[in-house]
Every structure is written in C-alpha cells, then in structure tokens.
C-alpha cells in the first residue's frame, strides 16, 4: 500500500473506535495517501465486522464483512488490548508517532483510558485529535449513546422524507454518520494543515447531530426567519413544476424537473406535444402545480411507453434535467459512474475480489485510489509495530507474550 506521490503522502493517522463515523474519515484520507491505522482488539473488534450483513457467502466472520470492508479499505489493522497496561503503553507510543487521531468512543472514554488529548499532546504537541460522537463532547446529553440511523431522525431528515399523508421515512443506514464523517474529514485536514504550518495541534469536537443540521441549514434558517415548520411533501418542490419521479415501461423510474417555462416547453416538445406549453393548464409553474395530477398523467403516459434510460436520454437531449432512479445494482453499470471508476475491485485475502467505493471527488494531478482491500483483523501488527512504530524485536516479543496483540 504505497502512498508515494499521493496528495496526503506522509500523513500518519491512527483510529480508535469503529462502525462508520470515525472509520469513514480515515478511509477518505487513506484513499489520498494517508497512512491510516485502524486499531481494534481481537476480543473486541470493530462492530461492523460482526454485527451487520452482508457477509461473504452469508457466513459471518471477522474478515468476511462487506459492511466493515466498505469503510476501511486502504488501511492497516492492528490489534491492541487496551485493558492491559502494556497495551496502553503501546497505544501511547503510537500516539507519539501519528499526526492525527480519529476517535469515536463515547465522551470521556479516551480520558479514562489515559488517552485524552491533554495527556497525549504533552508528548506530541503537534497532534491533532478529532473526537466524533452523537451529541458532541459537552452538553446535558453528551453521554447519550446512539447510532446514526436514529440520529437522522433527531436531526429532522426523516420528518422531511415521505409523502404528506404517510409516516416519516428511513434514510438507509446511519445516514447522518456520513454527513459528519465528511465534515470531519475537512476539519481534521484543516487541523493538520495548521499543525504543519505552525506546529500547533488541535482538539476537534465534532457532534454528528450538529453536522447533520448543517444539511438542514436552509429549513432551520427559514424557521428562524418566518416560523415556518416544513413538512414532508413527497417529491414536490416549491419552485419547479413538474418535479418528481415517473414510472417507466421497464418498471424503473425516471426523475425529472422543469425550473422554467422554457424548460417545460422543451419537455413538451420532447414528449411529442409542444402544444402543452401553450395550454392554460400548464403554461406557468403555478398553473402546472395547480393541475399537477393532470400533468403527471400526461408525463406518465409518455414515460410508460419507454424505459427509464431512454426517457432520460431523450429529455436530456432536449435540455431537461432528468435521470433514472438508479438502484444499487445500477450504480455498478451506470455509464457515468463507470467512466469515473467509482467502484474499484480489489482482492481481499478471505473475501476474494470485491468492489470498494471511491470518494465523490478526485484530484486531477495527484489522483487518489483504493490503495488496497480492507485489512483482516490484526493483519498488519508486524509491519506497523516493527517498521512504522519502530519496536525492537525484544519489545515486540515482550508485548506479544503479555497478550497485548490479542
């Protein structure tokens, strides 16, 4: 897993924790060349290794989890038993080695382990530590545990998903964790940038709840300005009409929208009835919204006679925003994503060849990559402890005999 020549070459990252919110940060950094070490213990591995499918061949196992793999490619895995004093000593030594620590334990756990920022920064003043948790490190509910799938509800996203007459809808998995992990990646890198420039480290307190609210910033600002409390409205939009998903001949859906009368005229021509643009029922956006059911029927009649891909291609050719509703299998065959090499197959020691997802951006001159598959638990103990941390053979053997690597 060479990092030479990549944008983050030379950046050393150490992760404590598991699941999505912390490790997804480290994955993105690793994709651009940061040397990222994921610390677990064999007694208590990352929860994503064991608690959630899919597992290769549907057989659970520490090294068979597609869920863990998806957020931990391009990293190294080490096992350190932090319940043992020698394990703690080794963890502190690693904290001296690294530039950045990412941890997503519950607030106060790192301090109780003797791995709080204050203690570690005494020995490594350039250290940046990013602590991410549900509520942030302070506040009356700081100690509340939680998973991102539920936090997405507290942050208002589920309330605004679904049709008006129905219940709130789930956003798949721990949606908000990925908002927070992406925002956290920016903050962590900003911290490291300052550390490199000034020698001053930083402690970054990231509340996943607050990060999620950033994505709700428009609705919150509207509430503060007008008192308006938005509700879920299916696929409607206050400006665009039509604006929705339409069922196609192949059972797939196509999403489309018109943001001006000109775009609607283009859509009307594309679906073979240019006169619709002059029809008083559809001539303006308010009229189209008032007569939404009639308009939806007209569009559905057209989409119902062709596949979603064909419909999207025809509408785009006419200058109308449109795209098929891409399913999970479709992501792997979507021509645009394939051209970007969005999914890249790497060979895992136990799972064999399988696909990893690349971030949503790339650098043209210093591109990143899926540098390697997700690591098996503890697979890199030898390399990391001997070659990176610099343990002598005697030290390594002593730790091993004390069961630190178990």
């Amino acid at each position, binding site marked *: 897993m060479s990092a030479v020549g990549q944008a*983050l070459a030379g950046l050393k990252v150490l992760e404590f924790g598991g699941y999505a919110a912390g490790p997804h940060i480290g994955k*993105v950094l690793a994709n651009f060349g940061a040397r990222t070490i994921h610390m677990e213990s064999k007694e208590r591995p990352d929860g994503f290794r064991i608690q*959630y*499918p899919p*597992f290769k061949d549907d057989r659970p196992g520490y090294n068979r989890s*597609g*869920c863990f*793999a998806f957020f931990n490619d391009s990293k190294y895995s080490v096992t350190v038993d932090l319940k043992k004093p020698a394990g703690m000593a080794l963890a502190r030594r690693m904290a001296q080695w690294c530039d950045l620590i990412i941890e997503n334990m519950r607030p106060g756990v790192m301090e109780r382990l003797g791995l709080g920022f204050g203690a570690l920064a005494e020995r490594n003043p350039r250290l940046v530590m990013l602590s991410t948790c549900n509520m*942030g490190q*302070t*506040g*009356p509910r700081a*100690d509340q545990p939680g*998973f991102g799938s*539920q*936090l997405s509800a*507290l*942050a208002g996203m*589920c309330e*605004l998903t679904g049709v008006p007459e129905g219940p709130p*809808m*789930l*956003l*798949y998995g721990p949606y908000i964790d990925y*908002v927070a992990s*992406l925002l956290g990646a*920016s*903050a962590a890198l900003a911290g490291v940038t300052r550390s*490199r*420039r000034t020698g001053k480290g930083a*402690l970054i307190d990231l509340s996943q709840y*607050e990060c999620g609210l*950033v994505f709700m910033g*428009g*609705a*919150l*600002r509207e*509430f*503060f300005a007008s008192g308006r*409390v938005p*509700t879920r409205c299916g*696929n409607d939009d206050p400006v*665009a009409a039509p604006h929705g998903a339409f069922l196609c001949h192949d059972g797939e*859906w*196509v*999403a*489309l929208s018109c943001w001006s009368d000109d775009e609607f005229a283009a859509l009307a021509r594309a679906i073979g009835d240019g006169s619709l643009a002059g029809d008083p029922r559809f001539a303006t956006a308010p009229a189209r919204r008032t007569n939404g059911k009639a308009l939806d029927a007209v569009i559905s009649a057209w989409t119902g006679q062709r596949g979603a891909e064909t419909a999207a291609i025809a509408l*785009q050719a006419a200058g109308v*925003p*449109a795209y098929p509703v*891409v399913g*999970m*299998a479709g*992501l792997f065959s979507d021509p*645009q994503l394939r051209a*970007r090499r969005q999914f890249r197959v790497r060979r895992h020691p136990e799972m064999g060849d399988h696909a990893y*997802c690349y*971030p*949503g*951006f790339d650098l043209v001159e210093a591109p990143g990559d899926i540098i390697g598959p997700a690591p098996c638990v503890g697979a890199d103990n030898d390399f990391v402890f001997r070659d990176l941390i610099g343990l002598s053979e005697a030290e390594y053997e002593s730790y091993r005999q004390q069961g630190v690597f178990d």
Partner: protein
Amino acid sequence: MLLSDVLIIDATDRLGWLAGRLLADLGADVIKLEPPGSDRSRAEWRAFNVNKRILELDPEPASARARVEELLRTADICLLTPSAAIPGACLDPLALRRDYPRLVVVAIRPFGGVGPRSAWKASDIELMAAGGAMALAGEPDGMPVRVSEPQSYGWAGAHAAIGAVVALFRRDATGRGDLVDVSAQASVIAALSHAPAFVDLVGIEPTRAGAFMTGRSIKGARYRVFWPCRDGYINFIFYGGAAGRRTNEQLVAWMRQSGAELGALAAIDWKTWDPTKADQAEVDAIEAPVAQFFARLTKREFLIEGHRREMLGYPVATVADIASDPQLEARAFFQTVADSADRFCGSFAVIDGERPPLRHHPGAPFPAAPASVGAPSAAGRAGSSGAEGKP
C-alpha cells in the same frame, strides 16, 4: 482558527454553496462572488453563505474581470460551479490551473468533469436519483422519494471541501495547486452507507423499506423504525450488541414499571438474542407490545427517559423541536452575527474547546474597489499563497 491564513474565492451557485461555508467555518477567508443585483434574500441562500464576505461584481464585464483576476492572484483556493453566472469573469477550471499554478481549483458539477454524461443537467431530485438515494427512500411498492430539504448539494459541498483541503495539504508540501473534480452524483453515494456492498458481495439488491429497516437479518426480517406516539413519531429499533442489549433491557424495565403489557418481550433473554438471526414472526411478536407502549408517550418524554436510561432511540424531530433543543443551546450551536438578531447554524466543529464565531453576516458587502482588498494577515499569507499571478 485552523484555516486563518487561507483565502478562498467562491464562484458557486446552489450546488456548491456549502463548500465555502464549511471552509469559512474552519477559519478561511471566503469571498463570495455575486452577479450584480442577485437575489440574496432567501433563507437557503443566507444559510449557506453566512460567514463569507460578499463581493457584488461590477456590471461592466471588463471591470468585473479585472477585480476577479486581482483576487485570484493572492487566493489559495477557487471554488467553482462552472454553470454559475459570474459576468465577465473567466472562470474556466483548466484556464485557472494554467494561469495560477499554485491555485487549488475546485470544480463542482452535477456529474463531474469527465465521462459521457458530464454535460447532463440536474437539480437535487435528479442527483438523488442518479446517486442511488431515491431508490432507498419511500414505500417498498411505491414511488421513490427524496428528502424534501435538498441534500445532494450538501453531499457535493462536503466532498468539495475535503478535496480543497486535500489539495491544499499537497500544495503546502509541493508548491503546486491542483484541479479537484467533484461529482455531485458520486458524492451522493456516501448517503447509501454500505447498501452497494450487498449487490457486489452476495447478489442482493437493497430497496426502499418505508418505515422499516432491512438488511440486518440473514433471514430477511424487517424491523420497524418509526412508531406513532402522542405528538408525532419515535425512531426506535431493536439492536443487538452491547448497546442494543442494554436498550432492550431498559425498555422492558420501563414498560414493566409502567404496567404495560409485555407479551412476547417477557420471555426474551436479551443476553443471547441476536437480531441478525431473528425471523419475521419473532420480530412481529416482540414489536407489537412496544407499539402500544410508545403510542402513549410524547416525543419529549421518550427523549428524556431514553437518555436517563441510556437507551438508543430518538424522537422524529421537526425544525421547531430542533430549534429548542437544550443540548444545542448548551453548546451554543445556533449563533447570531455581528449586531443582527438573525440566527444561523453555527460553525460545525468546536475547536480547542470553542466554537469559532460566525464573522460575516450574509448581507455584509465586501469592498468592491480594488484598493480596498482586505486579504487577511499579509504576513500569514506570504508563505502560503505565493505571488505567481497571471503572466
């Protein structure tokens, strides 16, 4: 401030507003270019452009272009949505890379800068469709839906901000800028968690599950997520693991103390119960008494007692609930700017124990005249941006 020596020119439209906002929250000086007379009154515009300085460009194209070029000579990063209407300004990503070798250029497009559909048009709904998110939201047999509050612009902006700082890190080490190519479609994929892995690894395609969670049981059972309560909904799921075990035990204890009917819950040993191995009949049996219990609670009662018992689960909040949440109040998340009473989401991270204050109101203009360029700390900037300028 972490990025206090970084100057950013922000020439984005809605697709890219968040990128500059995030970097401003981290301390960068972000100058947002606006066409003359643009509408800056909408809540959405203000939410994502607060903390930036606003430069309204001269309606005369040559003057606007000269002003932008002057700023670019000292800028570290330029954020672009190439479709943004910036009169007179030559903001082609490749030309900027050629003309300003140390500049990090971040081009945010619906489908990125390469590929057969890179010129396709899209708004939020097409991007949520193209990135897979709509396929996973909505009733199983019904229409795919998007979140009513646009999200794809957030995913794109969040990725763009990372790309900007990744390239800045490299620029500090090598002296060379870069072109960061952001695809909003690809960015949305982060919202899908590990759903694509099911297709690749075991040939199962996750689909929308409505108010239920799927993909956790190897027997295909689905778990209820949203439970009606007295004043809305509660989000609660039967989890496994240590945290799930505690939650499940505490819920049953709470129900027992409240005199609620326990039904099938009474016989469950949570120490051995495994949600990945439960079938649908078992899940239905344990969920029925919980539905009756939750129907009697308010959202706030669940939040308070759930916290006291260290349970997993939250109410389904509205923006009004969020605006009055004591947790956010204690952490001063919502902030005002200068002498205005307008409230905004504050900076997203607390740095060294302090939330960086919002510095610029979205209505505050940046001086239009070239002589008034207020670049931050000249000493701090000297080593970071260079003075290569346009030849």
